[in-house]
C-alpha cells in the first residue's frame, strides 16, 4: 500500500471511529427515555394532575438548596482555611467541627436544628428570633455541607505546591495576601468539580428537610400521595422533577468547569 493510500484510509476511518466514540451515549439514551416519559406523562391525565400539584414544591427545594449552598461555600472556605492554619486553636476548632458534622447523619442534624435548636433559640431570645421553617432547614444543610466543603477546600489548598506560597512570601506578601492572590485562585479552580458535585448532592439531600414539615418537593409529593392514594404517579413525578433539576445543574456545573479550564 502506498503512503497516500494509507493516509486516505486512515483519514477516512479515523474520524469515523472517533465520531462514534465521542457520541455521549448516556445522553442519547436519556433523551430517548425522556421523550418516552414526557410523552406518557403529558398524555396522561393522572400524571398531569400529580405534576400540577407537586411542582409547587420545586420553589422551596431550590430556594433552600441555593441559600444553603452559598452559605456552605463561604463557611466551608473559612473552615478550610482554618484547617490548613498553623494556629493550633483555629486548627483544633475547625477539625472538631468537621469531625462532628461528618460523623452525624444529616437527617439527625436537620431534626436537631428543627426540634432542639429552634425552640431553644426562641426561648433564649424571648421570641425575638424564630428559626422555624426555612431558616432551620438552611442551618442544618449549610452547617453539614460546610464540613464537607472545608475538606474539599483543604485538599485543594494542600495540592498547590509549597513553592507558590514561598514565592509569594518572599516577595513580601503576608500569609493572607499570599493565600488570597496566589494560592486560593489556583486551589479553587482545582476544586470546582467536587464543589459542583456537592451542589448536586445538596439538592438531593434537601429532600430530608421534609421531616421538619417543610413543603419541599418530596413533602408535596407525599401530600399528594396521601390525598389521592396514587403512589405510583406521585413518586414518579417527584423523582422526575428531581432528575430534571439535577441534570440541569450538572449541565451548569460542566459549563462553569469548562470556562474555568479555558481561563
Amino acid at each position, binding site marked *: 500500500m502506498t503512503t497516500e493510500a494509507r493516509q486516505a484510509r486512515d483519514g477516512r476511518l479515523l474520524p469515523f471511529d472517533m465520531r462514534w466514540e465521542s457520541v455521549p451515549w448516556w445522553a442519547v439514551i436519556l433523551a430517548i427515555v425522556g421523550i418516552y416519559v414526557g410523552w406518557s406523562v403529558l398524555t396522561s391525565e393522572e400524571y398531569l394532575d400529580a405534576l400540577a400539584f407537586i411542582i409547587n414544591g420545586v420553589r422551596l427545594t431550590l430556594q433552600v438548596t441555593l441559600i444553603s449552598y452559598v452559605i456552605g461555600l463561604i463557611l466551608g472556605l473559612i473552615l478550610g482555611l482554618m484547617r490548613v492554619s498553623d494556629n493550633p486553636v483555629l486548627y483544633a476548632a475547625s477539625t472538631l467541627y468537621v469531625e462532628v458534622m461528618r460523623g452525624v447523619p444529616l437527617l439527625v442534624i436537620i431534626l436537631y436544628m428543627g426540634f432542639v435548636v429552634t425552640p431553644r433559640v426562641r426561648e433564649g431570645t424571648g421570641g425575638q428570633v424564630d428559626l422555624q421553617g426555612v431558616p432551620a432547614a438552611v442551618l442544618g444543610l449549610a452547617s453539614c455541607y460546610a464540613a464537607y466543603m472545608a475538606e474539599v477546600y483543604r485538599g485543594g489548598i494542600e495540592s498547590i505546591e509549597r513553592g507558590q506560597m514561598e514565592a509569594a512570601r518572599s516577595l*513580601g506578601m503576608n500569609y493572607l495576601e499570599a493565600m488570597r492572590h496566589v494560592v486560593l485562585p489556583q486551589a479553587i479552580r482545582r476544586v470546582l468539580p467536587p464543589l459542583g458535585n456537592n451542589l448536586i448532592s445538596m439538592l438531593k439531600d434537601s429532600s430530608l428537610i421534609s421531616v421538619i414539615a417543610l413543603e419541599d418537593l418530596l413533602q408535596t409529593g407525599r401530600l399528594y400521595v396521601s390525598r389521592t392514594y396514587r403512589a405510583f404517579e406521585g413518586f414518579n413525578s417527584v423523582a422526575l422533577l428531581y432528575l430534571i433539576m439535577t441534570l440541569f445543574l450538572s449541565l451548569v456545573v460542566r459549563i462553569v468547569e469548562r470556562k474555568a479550564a479555558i481561563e
Partner: protein
Amino acid sequence: MNSEPIIKIENVYKSFGHVKAVVDVSLDVYPGEVVVIIGPSGGGKSTLLRCINKLETIDRGRILVDGHSITETKNINKVREEIGMVFQLFNLFPHLTALENIVLAQRVVRKRSQKEAEEVAHDQLQKVGIGEKWDSHPSQLSGGQQQRVAIARALAMDPKIMLFDEPTSALDPEMIKGVLDVMLDLAEEGMTMVVVSHEMGFVRAAADRIALLDKGSLVEVTTPEKLFSAPEEERTKEFLSQIL
C-alpha cells in the same frame, strides 16, 4: 568594602529533626558583593540561603539583614520586601501572565498604581530580554524564559539583595546562558547577590567570594582566583576535582 555588612550571619544552626542542615555558620556579605555558595548536595547551601529571608527559621544564632535581626523583627514582610529571591523551580504563579506575575506584589506590597506597576514590569521584562512575552502564561514559556520572568518579578520590587537558589540547575543546557547573562548584568550593576550555584563560569566571571559548605559547616571562604589556583582546604580540593 569598608562599609557595614548588609547581611550578617552569626553562628547559625538549623536542624530538620536529627539532620543537621546548618552548623555554626558565620558569614558577612557586604553591599555590592557577589557571594557564591558551593558544596556537595545536602550540604546545607539552600537551607542557609532560605534562612536569610526566613523561609526557614533558624534554631540558634543571629541573622541581620540591613541592620534588622530577622529573628527578632516584628514584621518579617518588611525585611522580605528588600530581599528578592529566585528559586530553582522558578515558582511563577501559573494562573497569571508574565506581566501579572510581576505586577501582583508591586500592587499588594509596594502599593503602586496599576499603571506604574505595569510600566515597571514591562521595563524589567525588557531588561531580562523577553519584553515581547509579557502576555504569555508560564506554561507557554520555556524554562529559561520562566526563570527570567522570575528574576524580573523579584527585581521589580527594587530589592537591595538578591538570593538565587540554584537558578540554572533545572534548565536545559541551552537555556542556562540566557539566565546567567542576566545575572552577570545584575552583578555588574552592583547588586548584592548571594548565589547557590555550581556554574563555574559564573563563579569565575562574577563572584567576589566563594563559600564552600559541607555537612552544614563552612569549610572555606575564598576568592575565585584562589579557589581555582590554590584551594587551601583538602575538602575544597576534593569537591572541585569532582565538579571540574
